[in-house]
């Protein structure tokens, strides 16, 4: 349809003025998807600057046509080319007459447009506000269901479905080792290199070890792992459960008398809660290794680096980081499941849920981290 072909039949337009104010517009040839646009231009050109009270369209020599061509006749008949004057049509072939007859009446088109009228802005704002309130209640209800399901699992460990738990743990935890190691090692290296220059001015390069240790253990280890976890697993949980929701698998569980929260969410939240601190410990170690490599390259002996590290880091620092990681793991996997379970209908719904899981996950990670920092400062941890 986009490729003009030379031998394709063309449409011809001939305007004949009869008496003053009256004209016959004769159309001939093919009036179809290929010729419609050119024909419209031709008609507009020929009618330009003239005004008629009576226009007759002679369609008897239109050999061939389709809906895209008939739209031109439809517009002529409804006066779009000649404002105020509705052309009369004669001689159209019966099969084309049928095509033209399929066009909706202008008032029906308008009625259809009217049905789609947008709601007033006040209504939209009100509905959005109510929606926010409902979302909050949904989160509370979700937390409640999750707590009940966890309590149920404690009472009846058989409900845990260990194979599912192991599968999720492997995907969310073990399979993330490589990416977490790489990112942490490189972060350690980068920070060490960046810090080396300013510290050199004070002859304090050995303190790179102290700094890397504190930064990786208290902040970057947990945060970076949590962000990777939100991107990899939070989104995966949301997409998995979202697809199940769309496929009515969640409904199937419910009608079997199985609670989807206990059946699907508990395993994911537990796996996240356990995997996150382990991944974080690994991330801390790899980040420190990055720093150690740089310090060693600068000529400091390993024993000295070790002494600096052990002096700077206490057990409370490591615990502080690990506890944060536990919280991050629970929150990120819970959010992923929450958004998955609340997936709406439609083709973009699963994608939307995954996006929401990642965005809200990262946002909460930072907010929670800030809260931890304030408490740590106040309590002097």
């Amino acid at each position, binding site marked *: *349809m*986009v*490729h003009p072909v030379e031998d394709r039949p063309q449409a011809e337009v001939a305007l004949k003025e009869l008496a003053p104010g009256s004209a016959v517009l004769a159309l001939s040839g093919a009036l*179809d*998807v290929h010729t*419609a*646009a050119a024909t*419209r231009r031709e008609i507009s050109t020929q009618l330009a600057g003239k005004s008629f009270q009576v226009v007759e369209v002679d369609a008897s020599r239109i050999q061939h046509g*389709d*809906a*895209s061509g008939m*739209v*031109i006749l*439809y*517009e002529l008949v409804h006066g779009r080319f000649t404002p105020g004057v509705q052309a009369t049509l004669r001689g159209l072939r019966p*099969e084309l007459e*049928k*095509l033209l007859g*399929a*066009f*909706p009446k202008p008032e*029906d*088109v308008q*009625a*259809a*447009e009217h*049905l*789609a009228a947008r709601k007033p802005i006040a209504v939209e704002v009100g509905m959005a506000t109510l929606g926010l309130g409902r979302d909050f209640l949904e989160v509370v209800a979700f937390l409640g269901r999750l707590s009940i399901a966890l309590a149920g699992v404690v009472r009846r460990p058989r409900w845990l479905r260990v194979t599912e738990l192991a599968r999720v743990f492997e995907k969310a935890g073990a399979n993330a080792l490589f990416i977490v190691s790489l990112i942490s090692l490189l972060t350690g290296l980068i920070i060490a290199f960046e810090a080396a220059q300013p510290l050199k001015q004070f002859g304090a390069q050995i303190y790179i070890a102290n700094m890397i240790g504190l930064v990786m253990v208290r902040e970057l280890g947990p945060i970076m792992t949590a962000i990777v976890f939100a991107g990899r697993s939070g989104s995966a949980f949301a997409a998995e459960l979202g697809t199940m929701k769309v496929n009515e698998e969640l409904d199937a569980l419910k009608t079997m008398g199985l609670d989807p929260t206990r059946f699907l969410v508990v395993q994911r939240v537990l796996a996240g809660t356990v995997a996150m601190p382990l991944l974080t410990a690994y991330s801390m170690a790899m980040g420190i290794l990055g720093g150690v490599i740089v310090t060693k390259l600068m000529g400091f002996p390993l024993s000295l680096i070790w002494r600096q590290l052990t002096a700077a880091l206490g057990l409370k620092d490591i615990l502080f980081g690990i506890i944060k990681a536990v919280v991050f793991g629970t929150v990120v996997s819970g959010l992923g499941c929450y958004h998955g379970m609340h997936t709406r*209908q*439609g*083709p*973009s719904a699963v994608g939307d849920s995954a996006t929401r899981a990642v965005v809200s996950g990262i946002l909460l990670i930072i907010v929670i981290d800030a809260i931890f920092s304030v408490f740590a400062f106040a309590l002097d941890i």
Partner: protein
Amino acid sequence: MSSPTEKQPPIIAVEDLTIGYGERVVQKDLNFQVRRGEVFVILGGSGSGKSSLLKCMIGLVAPVSGKILFDGVDIVTAEGAERLKLLNKFGVMYQSGALFGSMSLVENARLPLDEFTRLDLHERELVALTKLNQVGLLEAARRMPSELSGGMQKRAGIARAMALDPAILFLDEPSAGLDPITSAGLDRLIRSLSRDFGITFVVVTHELQSIFAIADRCIMVDAERKTLIAEGKPAELRDHSEDPVVRQFFRREADPEQERKTG
């Protein structure tokens, strides 16, 4: 807008077609023709490969061997502009409607016109609305696909498939998942589009009632023998076919093997 005649050259000719995936042959040695203006139905039980055959005919899947000629042009080998010209000859309604979820119905129906014509927006909109009007969905034109019932989605799928006035419409399981009333409505729509606008239909289905309501001619493919086992008018096949599988199909009898197992 001709009535189906046997003398005219076929609009689609399938010659020595073999379809399959990898090593697995789904159907082989298929030979049949679709005549201009007829409603042609492809029958077969579940898993017989009728949907694969349809995918092959519309050029989505390459066959293992054979030709599928549209007015003499082979869709298997056509490329570039020739292929595009061929693709614009037919429209396809997919089993689930396959409407684009982010667009309203009228935008869905308008999309081919937006891409392939140089009409004004107003005119494209009017043509799209006409197509929706033809399938009885004018009032739902501004609604999103997710707000529609299954039957409405299918009808909207037909409207989109008709946007460029194709000579042929392929319909994949139009009545699957629909209630009898909606399904009968869809059958009537197919008949009236065929009668009034001379559109050739190729329909894949296994709904017996639909077959008798719409089909001028049908072919039947079989999963066991992996080839065409019957061709003709549905009533003839029902009343005169010697083939046990065809008879079973039209009489809606269970497979004796299966029956023995389930009692």
